[in-house]
């Protein structure tokens, strides 16, 4: 327990920063126009202000109540997101099979333990299933494997 709700305080301040950023970019880069003939900048500029306002309200409320420890995890997001990134990096140059293997292997590290047998079986199963479903079944033109250039 904390004396004030740090989670909402930080969350609110993040909203303020985000809203301010959106409004600033909109005002600086896009024509605002008038309310009657809105330019492309008007709507985002208003939204940014509203978002910031909501952030301030959230942060103020947070000062007046106690808060719990936020639920922050390090390894799960790290490995899961790294898996997704590896898929994005590999799918075009290397093809479907390497991308599947890498996302499965990397993301399963988020378990913080390696189960070599079940991992290998899972990779094998997915590498058989995914082409069957997507390439044969739905006829999607994804190359299965491509030798790196």
């Amino acid at each position, binding site marked *: 327990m904390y004396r004030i709700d740090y989670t909402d305080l930080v969350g609110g301040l993040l909203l303020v920063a985000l809203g301010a950023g959106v409004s600033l970019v909109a005002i600086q880069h896009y024509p605002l126009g008038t309310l009657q003939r809105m330019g492309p900048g008007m709507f985002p500029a208003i939204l940014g202000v509203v978002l910031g306002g909501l952030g301030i309200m959230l942060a103020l409320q947070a000062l007046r109540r106690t808060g719990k420890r936020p639920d922050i995890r390090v390894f799960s997001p790290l490995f899961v997101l790294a898996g997704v990134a590896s898929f994005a990096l590999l799918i075009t140059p290397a093809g479907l099979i390497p991308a599947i293997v890498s996302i499965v292997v990397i993301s399963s590290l988020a378990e913080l333990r390696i189960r070599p047998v079940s991992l290998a079986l899972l990779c094998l199963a997915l590498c058989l299933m995914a082409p069957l479903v997507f390439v044969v079944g739905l006829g999607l*033109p994804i190359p299965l494997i491509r*030798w790196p*250039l």
Partner: protein
Amino acid sequence: MKSILTAAAVALGLAQPLAAQDFPTGPVTIIVPYSPSGNTDVFTRHLAPYLEEKWGQPIVIDNRPGGGSMVGTAIVAQAEPDGHTLLVTTSAFVTAPAIQTSLPFDSREAFAPVANVGHVSYVLVTNGDSGFDTLEDFIAQSKDAPKFAATAGLGTTTHFAIEKFIADSGADVDVVHFKGGGPAVVSILSKETDIYGSSISSAGENLKTGKVKALAVLGNERIDALPDVPSTAELGFPDLEIKQWVGMFAPAGTDPAIVAKINADVNEALQTPEFVATVTPLDWTLFQSTPEGFAQQVDEELTKWKALAVSQGISK
């Protein structure tokens, strides 16, 4: 980005020094910067089997819609100039750059025009119950009470057609943009707007049932589908020869011999009676073009629409 299979062919060294008579050495990707089922897409899908047969290689049609056709166009601008990645697009190729000023390519420098395959005509349409039956009526009434014109989107050929009409006729019309031809036709049906430069296929059955009526055909001549509707030239506007054309482009730097070969093969396909029979009901006028002639046309139109965009105050 290149086609998957083309890339594989290049990787294996198959596509190295390439002579025009060997073209194509692998599958050819045709990028269509519109959704499947649009006019351009359907046309390309009808064309592809002829080229496949002629070339003995599969053709992959890759739809990359977005940004008023500029997303797919940019992909081809950055593709390998070996003739294995081609673009089939519309006259948005020359109109959109007049408005979109931050494109990552130069429309003149980045492409080798291959062939102008054909065009469809635009018809100025209005609601069946609108208070005017002729274009003169419309122009006259607009001066008493300003009217609204619909477009299929900013920077589309329908937009420029209307802007040019406004500039030439002096009609008092405010332009309203919609997302695509469908919503624009709805706005005519619901009388939200008063006039729209529609292709025959967009207005479709609504023209036949009289829910929508045609005021004039944009251009110098009447069209077969609507023999009773006057052309804008007849009505005293000689400069409104605006068509939605469809053309094929290769990335700049493609061997001129390959460009010439593709041009010849496309021209040949366009002449086959079967092909003519499939696309005629869709109101296409087909062309036999040369790469040089098409390049010149593209160059002129880029200049023309940019100038119109500036004079009408729609370009930034």
